[in-house]
């Protein structure tokens, strides 16, 4: 009986159907299915399939992103129940993500957020034009493992360095890793400013983040 439900949970993510995902999550709760099991055996299993299909080129970004949205819809139903019971799902890490101050470019950062989420990270997206101090404050508040900084302009890249400096000053640099990205950003720049990781694209960001978390 549960097997059939787990299959439908996975399928809702594979289909990228947010309404069905939320509905099946609720149905699972009503049927007495353990929420953690629902996440691992049902929805996450679906996300793994989505990831595999993307890797072989059968699924594309919209499929990946909608799969992630369905996952989020299911989590929105299941997580409150987990928290109430004092439990939480295993995530690979917590990432505070944003586009730096003075920069309004969104899409690359949004892609990274979607892919990190799909890849098993918990992502806190601060948006665009984010003050350097805000990254630090939120890293502290969410107990983040990684701060991910996006900059699309050579003129705003400087703020990536600034955030790293602020994190040091706040005494957080030891346990918070910093990854950087965006069109003008290079490995050389990342090295120059003391970032822990750099990737050229969203898929690369997931690889680098997993490496930094030791997984």
């Amino acid at each position, binding site marked *: 009986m549960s097997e059939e439900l787990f299959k439908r949970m996975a399928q809702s993510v594979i289909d990228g159907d947010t309404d069905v995902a939320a509905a099946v999550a609720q149905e699972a709760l009503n049927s007495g299915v353990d929420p953690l099991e629902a996440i691992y055996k049902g929805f996450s299993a679906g996300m793994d399939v989505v990831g595999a299909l993307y890797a072989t080129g059968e699924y*594309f*970004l919209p499929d990946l992103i909608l799969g992630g949205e369905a996952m989020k819809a299911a989590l929105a139903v299941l997580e409150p129940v987990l928290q109430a019971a004092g439990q939480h799902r295993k995530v690979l890490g917590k990432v505070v993500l944003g586009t730096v101050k003075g920069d*309004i470019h*969104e899409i690359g950062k949004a892609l990274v957020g979607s892919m990190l989420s799909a890849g098993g990270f918990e992502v806190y997206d601060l948006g665009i034009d984010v003050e350097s101090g805000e990254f630090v404050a939120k890293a502290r508040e969410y107990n983040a493992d990684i701060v991910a900084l996006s900059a699309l302009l*050579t*003129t705003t890249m400087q703020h990536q360095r600034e955030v790293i400096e602020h994190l040091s000053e706040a005494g957080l640099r030891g346990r918070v890793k910093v990854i950087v990205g965006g069109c003008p950003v290079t490995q050389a720049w990342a090295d120059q400013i003391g970032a822990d990781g750099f990737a050229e*694209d969203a898929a690369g960001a997931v690889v680098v983040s997993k490496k930094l978390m030791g997984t």
Partner: protein
Amino acid sequence: MIRPRLEFLSRDTVDRVIEEAYELLWNPGVRVHYDEGLKLLADAGATVDLESRVAKIPRGLVEKAVDTAPSSFYLHTVEGDPVVHYGGDDVHVDPGSAAIEIVDYNTNRWRTPVTKDCEDFVRLAEMLPQIDALATSIVCGDVPQGMIDWYRLYLLLLNGRKPIVTGTFSMESYPVMHEMLVAVSGSAQALAAKPRAVFDVCPSPPLLWSDITCKVLIDCARTGVPAELVSMPLMGATGPQTVIGSTVQHAAECLSGITIHQLAGPGSPIVWGGSPASFDMRTGTTPMGAMATMMLDCSYAQIGKSIKPGGLPTHAYLGMSDTKIVDAQTGLETASGLILGALAGVNMMSGPGMLDFESCFSLEKLAIDAEIVGMVKRLVRGVDDTEEPLALTVMREVGHAGNFLKSKHTRRNFRKEDYIPSEVIDRDFRQTWFDKGALDVNARAHRKVQELIAAWQPLSLPKDVAQELEAIATRHAKGAGLDKLPRRTIQ
């Protein structure tokens, strides 16, 4: 004679696009992150929410702005000759702009450009007759960040005769660049009367004017310097996935820009332009060489030409490639874009010389692209059917003997009937090609680049003008933290 044309949209569809664009400007409206822009709109009757910085622009206001915007204008050389006509279906080309990397022919890899690269670029672009205008294509890495935008213009003004397509990266740079243009033209009035340069202004998709872009839009309008709107929806990412859907967004963004612009300076010239792209759903890159990209460019150009009787001047980023080095893909993408854009009657195509999604420049590619431009300009001259009779006289004259090479008809017509390329394009017999070194197009282009750069003659600006340019540059360089300007290779 027919001027060959390409149109994707029926009249009915054009009307639907324009209709939806007007509706978008009212609902949801457009975001304007610049107080002065919001104020201009509010004072003219738009509904402005200062908190969310959203302006809902009523249709009448937009239509009035479209009405006052000129249908055409000219760009001039340093001597004041009106060589570029932004209007009708006249087609021109300028190199792609704002490259932060340059391909080093010797390593076949890219590196950060420096002053000498910008100077070599100017020499080359000046010596290629197919290229109608210069652009501030090379972002120099040997000067501080705060001056990278105006510094390119400085080098162009010192060394170039052709009109210029440029833009700014910061809030403070327009006055510096305007000051330089005025120094060369003689006065602000002279510059406005005979524009030398256009400034690219880019709204951020979807429907957002940032502070920098809105400020330049207004500054251009007030100084009578032509503004070139560069709207860039990325299909499926920052704009609708459909070509027609992004054509609507493009129109809405341009109309919002024209409205703000005309409120600041009624009658000031403005261009319906862009740099939109497809979005690669495998990698998240923004291919300029994709077919949908080019179809979107042609479609929005058609809207610009149809928005009112006489239309508006048009522009597009075409003649680009997504490759990192010059190879076969480079040629096919660049040529496709230039051919389609020319048939669509785009007045200014920005792109030759540019690689890697608008981030890298290649001098060799510019030399190759110049040949494509030559072919494309031939294309739009069409098939000349004005001679009467078409063939009867010459064929009866030559008769069955068949030697047309001897005929005066041949000599009279051969130069105009086809485009005669330079040695960059190989048309040799095989052995000759081999004897010449068995070179591919990139190697032949490199030879041409070196030849043309060596043959270039310096521009002799009046001494006081050159000195004034240098003084302006030196003063503002100090402000950016640079005590001495980089040494120039052109004296």
